[in-house]
């Protein structure tokens, strides 16, 4: 079971992870975007962590909702509404809950990821964070059906997302700012897919 404290630890961990990877993600975004993805993510999760510290929510739904609202208000850019939607949809499946079992974890990611897909209208192969989210979702559902533990589920999600992230390198972008580059977007790793892997890795480290 993942407790409210663990979910809170996930967000706190993300603040550290994105602060550490701020330059790296920005570097990736310089090549095919506008050099702000790391700055955006770090700003957003610093604020999200702080908001939780100031008003500690009593259940996981409220916590994820707080994260969502903070991200929407502070990140901006494309990633703000997309990650904001992830946490908003995830929050809605967890309303009132203080712990999540494997099924709860599955639902959280399923609704969150579907929210991102609907919001951004990207599909696998467009060279976006969806290239990491979609295989992660498949892995989560497959392992959960086979009765896996939260740790096993998230291990599988991270592995699948990493593959998906790596698969973005040779692609020509069709969504987001990198799509303006056409052929020149090839041979670069998508910053959003990279930040998604970091999000899942942190989940693995805190929720299981």
């Amino acid at each position: 079971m993942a407790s409210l404290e663990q979910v809170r630890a996930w967000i706190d961990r993300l603040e550290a992870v994105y602060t550490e990877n701020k330059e790296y993600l920005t570097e990736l975004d310089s090549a095919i975007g506008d050099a702000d993805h790391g700055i955006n993510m770090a700003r957003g999760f610093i604020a999200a962590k702080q908001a939780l510290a100031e008003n500690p929510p009593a259940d996981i739904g409220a916590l994820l909702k707080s994260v969502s609202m903070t991200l929407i208000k502070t990140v901006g850019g494309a990633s703000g509404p997309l990650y904001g939607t992830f946490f908003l949809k995830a929050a809605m499946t967890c309303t009132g809950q203080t712990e999540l079992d494997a099924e709860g974890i599955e639902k959280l990611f399923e609704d969150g990821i579907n929210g991102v897909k609907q919001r951004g209208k990207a599909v696998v192969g467009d060279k976006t964070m969806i290239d990491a989210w979609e295989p992660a979702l498949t892995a989560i559902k497959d392992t959960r059906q086979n009765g896996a533990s939260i740790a096993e589920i998230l291990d599988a999600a991270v592995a699948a997302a990493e593959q998906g992230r790596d698969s973005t390198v040779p692609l020509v972008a069709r969504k987001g700012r990198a799509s303006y580059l056409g052929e020149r977007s090839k041979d670069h790793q998508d910053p959003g897919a990279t930040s998604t892997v970091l999000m899942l890795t942190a989940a693995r480290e805190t929720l299981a």
Partner: protein
Amino acid sequence: MKKLINQADNVVVDALKGMEAAHPDLLKVSYDPKYIVRADAPVKDKVAVVSGGGSGHEPLHGGFVGRGMLDAACPGEVFTSPTPDQMEAATKAVSGGKGVLHIVKNYTGDVLNFETAADLCQAEGIDVEAVVVDDDVAVKDSLYTAGRRGVGTTVLMEKIVGAAAERGKSLKEVADIARKVNAQGRSMGMALTSCTVPSAGKPTFELGADEMEVGIGIHGEPGRERMKVKTAREIVEMMSDAVISDLPYKSGDELIVMVNGMGGTPLIELYILYNEFAQVAKAKGLKISRKLVGNYITSLEMQGFSLTLLKADADMVKLWDDPVLTPGLRWGV
């Protein structure tokens, strides 16, 4: 990185304070959330025109707030779309009961954030329409991608649509004019040097001492092609060809033209470029009715320029000539 700033993370707020201090007669600034509204907002029974986007493109958008142009502007962090709470608060602050038009440059972040804001406003009973600007011919247009970037036409649209709103037109009429401006406007940019995002601390890209980037975006996004520097004449001919053939603009068309500096380009060069474009236009039978030569939609300290053409009928030119009173554009008052 050398910049005339205090702290990289404070440039937007510090510049907003400067605008507030410099133009109290024209505008008011809110800091939480961040937006700028014209001093006399909300104007009753007038469609309000709201725009916004990342900072670093000054005078766009905040410098175009005022009578005859924008009712409000929402500044994001440098090169980062603003957030829905800013747009929602700005929309409410200027809503005069006749509806609000959102002018959105076509970047995924801007589109998504303005969408959320529109939903929030509509939920509270404010009639909001959004028009997306996507005029950059450097980017291939396609249904399967994010489409074209919104660049120079935004400036011309804000002026023309602001005038239409000031004349008391309805939200539908104002939005239709905006869509027409977008349909008839095309742009392309180029750069000799990169810009440096303050929080990033180093240039977004590197160009050789004899290289230029053609088709650059206003956030330093790479362009169509990197090539050796050419003369002003060759560059203008190449860029005019791309822009003119896209719509296409045809002999006899009347144009509003903008030769726009990217922020680090001296005015003497912009006039040299305008001279070259005037000759191209003459050769092609294009008639330049109105023009802007200067820095209107910039990319921090980038050296380079963009060319924007707008096919303008008599009505559009009349709206163009209407009075405007903003920090960045002023005539007739």
